[in-house]
């Protein structure tokens, strides 16, 4: 990794601002393809946004172009895999101190190869100051955008596109950040921006907002008055002073006026009756810390009170706070939260944003990119390329402090297709995909972080093995290892860095990192081989099933689904067996399953249901390639079709572990159709539909699914949702409540998790749920 002043010690930045060399693979990535720019220059930080395209290697699967018998040869794979270049869109945001601005502009100029861009959107107070510099260096015309419009646009964008963007701050709880699940309807809300002054804006829709009030007592008051009182020049230092002070030495409290009697009167003696009320004397000295603390309380309380008064007047209960006064400072988040709770008596929620500092830049960018309709797309935070939420509290994390003072990154990938809620969710606003919140559960967090650390060697090995022809695979795999390892270490210290930490986010981060180093699908060959083997067994399995009586067959089908689910390269216990014994078969898997009664066992209820009328349409979320999809899911699908139930089979859009992808599922379905008339005619008659989920995660977020899938589920009147696999039915969605019947099944292939659930390795979860009447 190239050494750079920026990446090292941020505190010494002043002397390095002219001479830093920025490593292109670290900070301003993908500049050569950058096409749109926006810049937000604040009082001390600059935020640069640009839109660029990223070339990715992707593994594509394609059926062999012959329908003859050759493909049926034993050693012949069922389809071919080719690695192709794919171009995707990505938004890059970089935040750095204003002292670096010239060096950064020079760097951009040198690396901007073939942009046709002529204009740069600019916002923020500093946009005026640096206008000439930007125009001179970049030869782009500076187009100034309204600060507030940019802020609101940016806020809407992050609230819609970034899961766990908003959080509440709870002091004394661990962690202090309580992330909010994304509300399907973000409007209306109040945005209180605490810059030098305070602006209070009511946001009603995407395009409609109203500036309803403000106050001149804001961050500038804290800073200016604080500097006068304490002779401390820097904002951060003032906050630091405040965090050490005792305001009661300066403020007149209720107990100072009432004496000890406040208790009998039901008054809280610690309430401030008069800010600085005790400093009205000539013959006493006050400490800097105490005065700074008093000032901080005075300003935070005042802003909180005004925000509550405005929230009440406009009947709003969600208030987002931003601006430099707040920006990542636990001290101010704490005092503002206290004030909001106090003045609203808990009726108003003070919320903060992970990417608050980027709102202006995001908004300015969106303004400039209106013709590209960025709001039509769904975007996803790229965990590999984003710094995450740094704690600004030096006590909390001294090492991160130094880093956050230099370069902070956010990358967002434009997703192929818009993502929406599954219409079958009972209450989208309260849906939480993840079963365990690892930010909350320290024991589980330790376990899973260690688990992912230990699995890293194997993942690296597999990544290298997946690209035998590549000369630099080992080198890239090593970079991947370093990147993911450092992410895991960050998460150990700051579990809240990317919102709520979950098994899903750990898995997704790993996928993003793999992709970043051009390992698009490390399991493509494994999946290809397993699909080939499983296809050969399909007819035999189906024949055996068909020979059973009805009741016996239902149980066998369910066991097949479960047994198929044992084949999962994501779980260490299984990959150990599979690596050592490739012949590990379907029947053996069935034998490994726990005997009934299972750990969670509502099979009898399910069987009873099957004796009733058929479901209209089943939506099935498939898990693994190979035995799972071919010998587990397809026979189950076949039975449903047989009963007269239509089936929507949903597979991942992109690769994740050995999960079956949508394009693989198409080939597999074709191959099965060629062998099986039931599947064949169902595909022909569109009673069996294959769709993509819009996701590339081994887990499942039912609030971010491909729009096509959602539309189809609604059109076909899906009345049964089947979710299989540990990632989709245990790590996520275990507690998901649907409007229709649901079946969640998985084999617990992790001993620790099994124990936690009260079972043993290979315990079975069979959870059939019927919505309450």
């Amino acid at each position: 990794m190239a050494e750079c002043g920026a990446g090292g010690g941020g505190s010494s930045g002043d002397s390095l601002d002219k001479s830093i060399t920025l490593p292109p693979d670290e900070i301003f990535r993908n500049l050569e393809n950058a096409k749109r720019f926006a810049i937000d220059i604040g009082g001390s930080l600059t935020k640069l946004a640009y839109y660029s395209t990223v070339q990715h290697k992707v593994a594509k699967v394609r059926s062999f172009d012959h329908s003859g018998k050759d493909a049926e040869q034993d050693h012949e794979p069922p389809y071919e895999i080719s690695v192709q270049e794919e171009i995707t869109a990505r938004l890059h945001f970089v935040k750095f101190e204003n002292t670096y601005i010239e060096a950064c502009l020079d760097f951009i100029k040198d690396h901007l190869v073939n942009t046709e861009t002529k204009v740069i959107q600019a916002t923020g107070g500093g946009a005026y100051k640096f206008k000439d510099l930007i125009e001179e260096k970049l030869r782009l015309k500076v187009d100034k955008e309204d600060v507030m419009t940019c802020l609101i646009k940016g806020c809407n964008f992050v609230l819609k596109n970034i899961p766990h963007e908003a959080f509440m701050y709870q002091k004394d709880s661990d962690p202090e950040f309580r992330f909010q699940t994304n509300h399907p309807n973000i409007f209306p809300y109040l945005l209180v921006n605490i810059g030098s002054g305070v602006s209070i804006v009511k946001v009603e829709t995407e395009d409609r907002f109203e500036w309803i009030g403000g106050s001149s007592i804001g961050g500038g008051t804290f800073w200016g008055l604080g500097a006068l009182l304490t002779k401390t020049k820097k904002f951060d230092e003032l906050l630091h002073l405040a965090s050490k002070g005792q305001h009661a030495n300066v403020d007149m409290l209720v107990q100072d006026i009432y004496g000890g009697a406040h208790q009998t009167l039901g008054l809280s003696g610690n309430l401030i009756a008069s800010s600085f009320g005790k400093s009205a004397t000539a013959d006493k000295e006050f400490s800097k810390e105490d005065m700074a603390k008093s000032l901080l309380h005075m300003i935070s309380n005042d802003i909180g009170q005004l925000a509550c008064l405005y929230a009440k007047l406009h009947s709003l209960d969600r208030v987002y706070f931003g601006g430099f006064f707040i920006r990542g400072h636990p001290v101010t988040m704490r005092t503002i939260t206290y004030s909001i709770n106090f003045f609203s008596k808990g009726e108003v929620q003070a919320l903060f944003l992970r990417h608050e500092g980027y709102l202006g830049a995001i908004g300015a960018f969106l303004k400039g990119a209106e013709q590209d309709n960025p709001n039509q797309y769904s975007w996803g935070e790229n965990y590999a390329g984003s710094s995450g939420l740094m704690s600004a509290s030096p006590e909390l994390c001294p090492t991160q402090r130094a880093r956050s003072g230099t370069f902070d990154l956010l990358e967002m990938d434009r997703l192929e297709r818009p993502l929406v809620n599954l219409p079958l969710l009972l209450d989208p606003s309260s849906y939480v995909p993840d079963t365990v919140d690892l930010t909350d559960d320290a024991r589980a967090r330790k376990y899973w972080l260690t688990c992912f650390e230990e699995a890293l060697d194997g993942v690296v090995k597999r990544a290298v093995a997946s690209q035998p022809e590549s000369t630099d695979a080992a080198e890239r795999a090593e970079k991947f290892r370093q990147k993911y390892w450092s992410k895991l270490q960050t998460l150990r210290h700051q579990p809240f860095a990317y919102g709520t930490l979950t098994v899903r986010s750990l898995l997704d981060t790993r996928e993003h990192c793999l992709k970043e180093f051009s390992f698009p699908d490390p399991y493509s060959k494994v999946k290809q081989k397993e699909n080939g083997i499983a296809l050969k067994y399909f007819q035999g399995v189906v024949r055996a099933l068909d020979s059973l009586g009805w009741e016996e067959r239902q149980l066998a089908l369910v066991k097949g689904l479960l047994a198929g689910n044992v084949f999962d390269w994501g779980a260490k216990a299984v990959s150990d067996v599979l690596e050592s014994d490739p012949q590990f078969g379907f029947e053996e898997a069935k034998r490994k399953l726990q005997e009934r009664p299972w750990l969670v066992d509502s099979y009898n209820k399910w069987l009873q249901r099957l004796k009733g009328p058929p479901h209209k349409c089943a939506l099935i979320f498939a898990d693994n390639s190979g035995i799972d999809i071919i010998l587990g899911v397809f026979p189950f699908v076949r039975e449903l079709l047989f009963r007269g139930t239509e089936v929507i089979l949903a597979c991942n859009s992109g690769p994740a572990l050995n999960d079956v992808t949508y394009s693989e599922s198409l080939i597999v379905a074709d191959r099965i159709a060629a062998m099986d008339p039931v599947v064949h005619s169902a595909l022909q008659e569109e009673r069996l539909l294959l769709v993509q989920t819009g996701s590339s995660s081994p887990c499942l977020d039912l609030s971010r699914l491909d729009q096509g899938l959602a539309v189809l589920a609604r059109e076909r009147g899906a009345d049964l949702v089947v979710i299989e696999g540990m990632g989709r039915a245990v790590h996520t969605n275990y507690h998901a409540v649907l409007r229709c019947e649901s079946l969640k099944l998985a084999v617990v292939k992790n001993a620790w998790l099994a124990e936690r659930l009260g079972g043993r390795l290979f315990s079975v979860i069979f959870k059939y749920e019927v919505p309450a009447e």
Partner: protein
Amino acid sequence: MKLRPLFPWFVLDIGGTLVKLVYFEPKDITAEEEEEDVDSLKSIRKYLTSNVAYGSTGIRDVHLELKDLTLCGRKGNLHFIRFPTHDMPAFIQMGRDKNFSSLHTVFCATGGGAYKFERDFLTIGDLQLCKLDELDCLIKGILYIDSVGFNGRSQCYYFENPADSEKCQKLPFDLKNPYPLLLVNIGSGVSILAVYSKDNYKRVTGTSLGGGTFFGLCCLLTGCTTFEEALEMASLRDIYGGDYERFGLPGWAVASSFGNMMSKEKREAVSKEDLARATLITITNNIGSIARMCALNENINQVVFVGNFLRINTIAMRLLAYALDYWSKGQLKALFSEHEGYFGAVGALLELLKIP
């Protein structure tokens, strides 16, 4: 006829910064009474009415004296006296020296200090305090004082053209329909009450940014030692020079109080007068802003500002008047009252005399 308490009739409102004392001086004392009165009572009357200053810090606001008032069938004058709360120990000591406890009268006090100093009154002064609720007293006092007027003049007033030094006028206001009323009491801190009738009111909210904040910050920033001094500094420049944007009114949305002080150069160039003025404007505008929001939320359009922060503080009053009018587009009216900080004490006196 009801039993009236024995003389002397005086009460205390002990706030965070100031003690307000209201004393009723009977002018219809009969010779018989004169004969009966104990020496200590005469001495109190003489001490309070023949002086305008007490010790180094006590002051009688002679201009506020209400003449020829009838209370409980007695005619007399009402005197208004104030001294800093930190001199309470000296006051209690004086009560002991002058042997107040021998008067066998009820000793009434309101304000937080009634609680804080209750024990000292008892142990040092041998006086049993009758503690009265400060908000009850405040409202009672305002309504009463408004009803008796100000020696033939109106008690309540407002400002016309507050932003214009040439045309600004202080005009009497007839509070004939007092309800509903938003009452903003600016003492050391600020309390805001919504008053719907004589006995129906609620405390809406309060803020700790009040008179104590103005004075406290001024002491720290300018080294001044008295409220008068702080106000004098704040008034030195003609701040009514026309353009109100200079103290961040129409432009408040982007303006920042003390925001310029983020710059080292400007900090070095700033004068004490500028700092005092900025402090006054910041605190006053903020109170105006909170009062306006409360008025909107409570759907009340007359706002009465009282409390000692407004004493000799025309700048603050005009600023409040202007801010309320400007931001409400003329819907809200800022009202003021001549006896600014004494209503709690007056209310306490009425309680003492059991005047409903």
